[in-house]
């Protein structure tokens, strides 16, 4: 039996997440792992926007910021449970993405890049300037999710890092599954069509503006949930989560691994998340190395790491 690429991807992802802990020498690795999954989720969303629909956003950290601060603010001010607060953040992100996306998605290329960048910077500016609400640049505390206590009560006792590894891993697999399903759906086909040529897509009856907006809103929800998970996991949040550099990191992870492939993009997230951890010994060289990796991959492997490697292996086999 030949497995579809969707099932293969999900199996590889789930297997790696489940088996990797066997090789973890300390709880620190669970922490790095869960950071990879959180970033991987945001990146899976960007695959829909960049890889499927061929649009760019340099402001998606703004949505991560909305998701993160929803988890910090809603429990305190609205008395919501943190899980509901994350949901509220996702809804808010979707609504804002809808309102912002309508006008800016008319733009293309660099113009779209700068418009989305402007949006992201506005969000991070509000978060750092409204100090009486958000604690300003010093950040603010985020309440406990409480799911770990529930699991303990029914007999599953996990350490904090283990719990977050498992939980964000689960959310990532779910997110990847949804993104892969979308690829083969009519919406996914419409997105790929308009990626190839907007004019051609319009000619065959694809509502280009509508589908671009759909991709933008979905990817915003992914970024928002990723921000919520990060906030709940760290129990603390600063406006950096919405900052320009975070937006750049997200896009770089996506394109580095391969924007056209969910698995590739998650690999990109894994590499860029671990790189600074590995380089802590050479902390001075961190920026130098990051910049170099970004340039080299984009010059020599234009489709991103995974698709380029896959092609090379396939080429050799034939």
């Amino acid at each position, binding site marked *: 039996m030949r497995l579809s690429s969707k099932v293969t991807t999900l199996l590889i992802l789930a297997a790696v997440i489940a088996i990797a802990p066997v090789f973890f020498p300390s709880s620190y690795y669970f922490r790095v792992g869960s950071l990879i999954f959180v970033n991987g989720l945001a990146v899976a969303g960007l695959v829909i926007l*960049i890889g499927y629909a061929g649009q*760019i956003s*340099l402001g998606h950290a703004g949505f991560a910021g909305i998701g993160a601060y929803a988890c910090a603010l809603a429990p305190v001010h609205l008395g919501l449970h943190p899980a509901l607060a994350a949901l509220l953040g996702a809804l808010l992100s979707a609504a804002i993405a809808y309102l912002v996306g309508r*006008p*800016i998605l*008319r*733009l293309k*290329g*660099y*113009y779209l*890049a*700068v*418009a989305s*960048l*402007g*949006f992201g*910077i*506005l969000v991070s*500016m*509000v978060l750092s*300037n409204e100090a009486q609400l958000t604690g300003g640049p010093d950040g603010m505390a985020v309440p406990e999710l409480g799911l770990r206590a529930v699991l303990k009560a029914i007999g599953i006792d996990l350490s904090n890092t283990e719990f977050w590894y498992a939980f964000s891993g689960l959310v990532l697999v779910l997110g990847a599954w949804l993104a892969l399903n979308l690829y083969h759906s009519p919406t996914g086909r419409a997105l790929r069509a308009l990626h190839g040529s907007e*004019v051609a897509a319009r000619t065959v009856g694809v509502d280009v503006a509508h589908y671009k907006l759909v991709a933008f809103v979905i990817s915003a929800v992914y970024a928002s949930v990723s921000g919520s998970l990060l906030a709940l996991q760290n129990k603390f949040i600063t406006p950096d989560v919405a900052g*320009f550099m975070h937006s*750049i990191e997200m*896009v*770089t992870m996506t*394109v*580095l691994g391969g*924007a056209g492939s969910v698995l590739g993009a998650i690999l990109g997230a894994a590499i860029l998340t671990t790189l600074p951890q590995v380089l802590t010994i050479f902390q*001075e*060289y*961190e*920026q*130098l*190395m*990051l*910049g*170099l*990796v*970004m*340039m080299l991959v*984009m*010059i020599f492997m*234009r489709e991103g790491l995974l698709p380029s490697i896959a092609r090379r292996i396939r080429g050799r086999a034939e």
Partner: protein
Amino acid sequence: MPELLQFLLSGITVGAVYALVALGFTIIYNASDVVNFAQGEFVMLGGMITFFAHAAGLPLPLAALIAIIVTAAIGVALNKLAIEPARGAPVVSLIIITIGASIFIRGATQLVFDKQIHRFPAFSGDQPILIGGATILPQSLWVIAGALAVFVCLWLFFTRTLIGRAVLATANNRVAAQLVGINTNYVMTLSFAMSAAIGALAGVLVTPITLTSYDVGLALALKGFAAAMLGGMGNPKGALVGGLLLGVLEAMTAGYVSSQYKDAAAFIVILAVLFAMPQGLFGRKSTDRV
């Protein structure tokens, strides 16, 4: 009234720096269709190299000259090593390459020099000049004069010299330019050298006022980019006017609304301009070939 004049003067000073960065963007964008996010790093390099050359005992003008030449060489290297090999890559890849270059240059500067904030003396002293109740630093006049001089030189270069026209021809159609005998590789090298040199000049002029350190480049690149877009990408006149407008706008917002949100005002106006006239103030309408 003196208050308004004061905001206007400081706005024009900052705006002149944005205009210089935007002019640098424009040259590279015209020649290669690449928006160079590392443009701000040229400004940073101009300031940092001048400081360290000056600190090593060189007279200020010589230090500034060395800074401009070294930065121009780095600009050429950027083109040869990173932009040229990626010719024809999608916009997303080019954005990541130039942002990667910007992070790389920042990391290298921090290693070669340091992470401190630096300043060298102003060219004509620090005694403020009084104009109608407002004050302006002599160095601000240097910055404004620098931006205007660069603009005039560029205008003459593009309209009155053969090589300037060759740059425009390359921008218009690379293959056609090659066919009429233009050495397009030379044009690209020249464009990156000029753009980097203009960025470095901006760094040299503004460092006595705003100080410099290894990480000032990114913010400048974003503002310069916004200014170029406000005026219309690829248009030198747009870059100058866009830069000055942005600077004045920021100063007015800081003065009359809120200094915390001065950057926000800039981006809100840019979003508004992009919606109302996506080609910027001076850009030409473009139609896609199908």
